[in-house]
């Protein structure tokens, strides 16, 4: 298994173990993925003794050693984009689509007809200028709308 998978498994078995990722490349999607998998921070392979000990000290104090660039990626992942073109209902339907719900289950959970769901989805596709559910989900995620 690679380090990201190992991180996930360690945290699953022993959530209290703190994990620091060792990486060659500092600002990569993979470092972000490892943080998402449960790592608390990371160190680069060429870190000197001070940096290694400083990272350990930060972890013990409850901190997360990471560069500002990675911290920005983490913050960005939590921040949903509020400047979306959708109505509240469309946004709820889009959210449900992302969760993999069927038209029927969306209709049931919002207590509306399947035709009403289709109507909202048609408007969502128009606003996103897409023709498929997959493209709608991809575009909505890319813009942090869901």
């Amino acid at each position, binding site marked *: 298994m690679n380090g990201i998978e190992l991180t996930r*498994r360690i945290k699953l078995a*022993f959530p209290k173990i*703190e994990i620091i990722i*060792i*990486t060659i490349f500092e600002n990569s999607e993979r470092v972000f993925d490892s943080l998402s998998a449960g790592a608390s921070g990371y160190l680069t*392979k060429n870190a000197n003794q001070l940096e*290694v000990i400083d990272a*350990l000290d930060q972890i013990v104090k409850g901190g997360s050693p990471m560069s500002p660039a990675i911290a920005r990626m983490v913050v960005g992942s939590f921040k949903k984009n509020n400047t979306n073109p959708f109505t509240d209902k469309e946004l709820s339907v889009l959210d449900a689509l992302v969760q993999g719900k069927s038209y029927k289950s969306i209709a049931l959970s919002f207590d509306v007809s399947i035709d009403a769901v289709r109507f909202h989805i048609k408007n969502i596709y128009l606003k996103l200028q897409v023709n498929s559910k997959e493209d709608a989900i991809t575009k909505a995620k890319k813009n942090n709308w869901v």
Partner: protein
Amino acid sequence: MPKKIILVEDNVDVCLGYKMLINMTNEYEVVNYYHIGDEALKNLNKDMPDIALVDIDLLWVL
């Protein structure tokens, strides 16, 4: 009591380098190190580390 650390790193030089750096302190102690993730996972119960240093690029071993 120093905090217990395990290293999981398939590059032997990096692994030993980190071990040496960490064991020079009074606050931290490397209790074990592994070059394969599965081995580290199997021994977590025994090692009971406070912190695991994990190489992101560990090789996949089936």
